[in-house]
């Protein structure tokens, strides 16, 4: 599994970087989404890959040491990151939209004036 995941993380980062560097606004936005996915997966893989053992404790059970469950901490971090990525994405989209409307420029290379 590990090589596959490493390829996925690398591939998603590469794709997002390429998209962010394009001049089209929509591609930039797509790149941002890919970037957040890539970052989440990177953090997720950092705690190792565990199959079939979600961090749920059966009622009344005592776990042996070490725990056979997946690491819950990165999961908690990523969970909030996913939701925040949505908020930030919305903010970015609207910000870019405002810039586009006020400046009348849709080429990111040319978005340089700060006054309308």
């Amino acid at each position: 599994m590990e090589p596959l995941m490493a390829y996925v993380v690398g591939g998603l980062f590469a794709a997002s970087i390429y998209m962010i560097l394009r001049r089209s606004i929509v591609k930039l936005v797509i790149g941002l989404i890919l970037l957040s996915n890539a970052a989440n997966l990177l953090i997720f893989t950092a705690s190792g890959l565990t199959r079939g053992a979600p961090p749920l404790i059966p009622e009344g059970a005592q776990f042996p040491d070490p725990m056979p469950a997946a690491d819950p901490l990165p999961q908690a971090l990523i969970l909030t990151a996913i939701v925040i990525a949505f908020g930030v994405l919305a903010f970015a989209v609207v910000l870019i939209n405002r810039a586009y409307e006020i400046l009348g420029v849709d080429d990111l290379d040319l978005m340089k004036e700060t006054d309308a």
Partner: protein
Amino acid sequence: MSVLLILMLPFVGILLPPLLQRQGRLAATLGAGIPTLLAFGLLMSLGPSVLAGEVLLASREWVPAMGLTAGLRVDGLGFLFATMTLGIGLLVITYAHFYMKKDDPLGRFYAYLLLFMGAMLGIVLSENVLLMALFWEITSLSSFLLIGYSSHDSEARRGARMALAITGLGGFCLFAGLVVLGQIAGSYELSVILASGDLITSHDWYVPMLVLVLLGAFTKSAQFPFHFWLPNAMKAPTPVSAYLHSATMVKAGVFLLARLHPALAGTSPWFFLVGGVGIATMFFAAYVAFYRHDLKGLLAYSTISHLGLITALFGFGTAGAAVVGVFHIMNHAAFKASLFMTAGIIDHQTGTRDIRILGGLRKAMPFTMVLALLGSAAMAGIPLFNGFISKELFLKETLDLPLMAGAPWVFPVVATAGALFSMAYSVRLVHGVFFKDPTEKTPKEARDPSMGMLVPVGILVAICVIVGIAAEQTAGPLLAAAAGSTVGGELPYYSLSLWHGFTLELLMSAIAIGGGVVLYLQRARLYEIADRWPQLTGQMAFEKVQGLILSFAEGLTARLENGSLQRYIVLLLGMALVAGALPFLEHGFVTGTAELTPTNPVAIAVWALLVVATLATVFTHRSRITAIICLSVVGLLISIIFVYLSAPDLALTQLSVEVVTILLLLLALFVLPKVAPPESSTLRKIRDATLAAIGGAGMGLISWAVMTRPQDSISDYYLENATYPVGGGTNVVNVILVDFRGFDTLGEVAVLVLAAFGVYTMLRYARHTHVEGVDDMASDRYPVVLVSVSRPLLALILLMALYIFLRGHYLPGGGFIGGLVASVALILQYLASGIDWAKERMGVSFRYVAVAGVLLATLSGGAAFLVEQPFLTMTLLGLKIPLVGEIDYVMTLLFDLGIFLAVVGGTMTILSQLSHMQEDREPFDEEARAKETDPWKP
């Protein structure tokens, strides 16, 4: 306890004037006056014990790791300054009520004033020097607000900026100096520092530390060469000048000298730095004051001169001189505050402060004339006024300086010359305004003001006269207490009596008084000479430096920024790649030895699909919709990976976020440009692809390197304690979110809500006007099937959201996921039945829901305070709910409910606002459609 209350009262009172403003001016004034009066009363109740020589200490730990305690100290010196701060504060509040114009927002003014007052009290009552530095900064900031109060006036803004720049820079130096001082003494508590004077003065770091501390004191007390901010601050409303520039703000610097006198004074660096700067400032500023034509400008330079006098006295380093310094602080506060207020009265009643225009006001303003005459007499140091005694004692001190044995005449001569100019400008103030013939008509018909403005001045002048006649009987005890804590030991012998016999200092006084009058009579010739001199001031130097810094910053910005977003990203990425590659180059790349997880065909299939979907997203050129659908496939496959690798919570979150993200993108397509810019050149594509390949390969390698190494995680702690004794849940991810790391979670929902509010505000004023015919088009837009299915679905999905939310503590689910699912249910109604239809039925604005969510989460975390636990400690509190059953952790549930509401509110604010945009757009535009030549379109 009451010490803390005295300090808190002004800060608490800040809210009152702005709130009471609507009830009228009087209410605002009372709102400022009553907390001040209460604090003053409380302070007076401490008087007997402080005057008896007691030091009242009150201390609480704050940040023990940094040596920061919230320690307060009331000793004689602090008591004297607190009395001046609150007492003169009360007079200024009264005076300002009558002085300020009818349409001035008094609430804001008094709020600033109380903030300043509280900060000043903090400086003089702090036991911990770091705490003192904190309040020191607040005085700089609040004085900026006060000086720039007339914010429409560019001169006022400039003056405020200059004051902030100078005193703020001084504040940094002071802070650094105090840190060094604390390190030398081994404690930041004044009690320790004041007791270790020998250790400090013999330390290697003594001189650098002294210079830093003195920079703080000199900038604040406007000592040469940092004096120029004070005259420029005269654009402040006069009550502010009377308060800040006589009794408080500028006195903070000399307070510091007095406060640290036992620990730092008595060495030759101290003598030459403090005494030298003080005496030079005293003479120089008195000289300049004589040439000022603006009443407040004259008083400003006079203040600088008197501060120089006080600084010099502390600089002499002897106990006797320090006593006189404290005495002059009291006297100067009284007469200078009264004179500033008098200047304000003259300005208020005549419309000008220019001495060249004014004249002959004695007939029109007799009361004001008497008060100004008495105040100026005190300032000039005429016998029978308080200024005389302290000046006389000052002159006596200059005669006996062991460190100046080589040139004993220097200090007495300079001091006498300064006193001479002091007399001259005092005469000028009184004669020029009230007696000489007016040169032109004043803008307003002059007459005495209302009693409200005269009474505060009268009180101050009365103090000057009474102390001048019977100093020992009136000011004696307070002076003894204050000087006692300044000297830090036995008080030397001193006498406050008026008559000491025919002494050398009496002769010097006589020369100063007589010479001052002569100088004034020769003024016409002197002004002529002064006009011929070139003008070179500290202010010019300041502005020159400021200009240089600004142009440097502008040049740098212009060189770095060419306006292309992509260029910045390339630069940033390039830097990141270099920084990321360095460790690889240095240490090489080593794969870990951990055992790999076996792969199976399902995993390979998902992996292959993911690769295809990613490639498709990147290389789709035909349509934006297709690209977005490919993107959502990527998201869905990632959620499958989460399921496969034991992260059900993540899978659920990813899935529901994917839905709202796609909705967001579809809505955004309407507002984003439909025509793509021309494609980049091949060269640029190659450059970007190279960057992307290197970046991707790097991240993949990092991921690989981490995965193949053994894991050692702190998560075992979470797994062990999630159920008992801490969390009380079986879903460890959720327990981490709402309990172990609840503070993170709170911050993160706050970010989401802030982003939502950002979206809301940006789009709020960006509505597009309706175009004719929109309503006709809108009527048949909503498909019947979707409408009829979505409505019953609403209840079902909401119920499911509730279920997911409630079970979250034990099984996958919780506030985040439940909130997202609920948002999907709600937004479906918008899509199916239209904004107007849905909005009518929602009943509540989602912005309020979002705020309520954050508030609920914060409050449920704050509930821990009730049982004296740290913020967000989720305590066991059982509650039985019918049908649901018993809930052990009510606070946890409430916190999660807050997250739920914040997520629903935030997401819905974003989506509904965006769909509003779309609704308001023109639905169909022939011309725009015709322009869409590019295939990259919706």
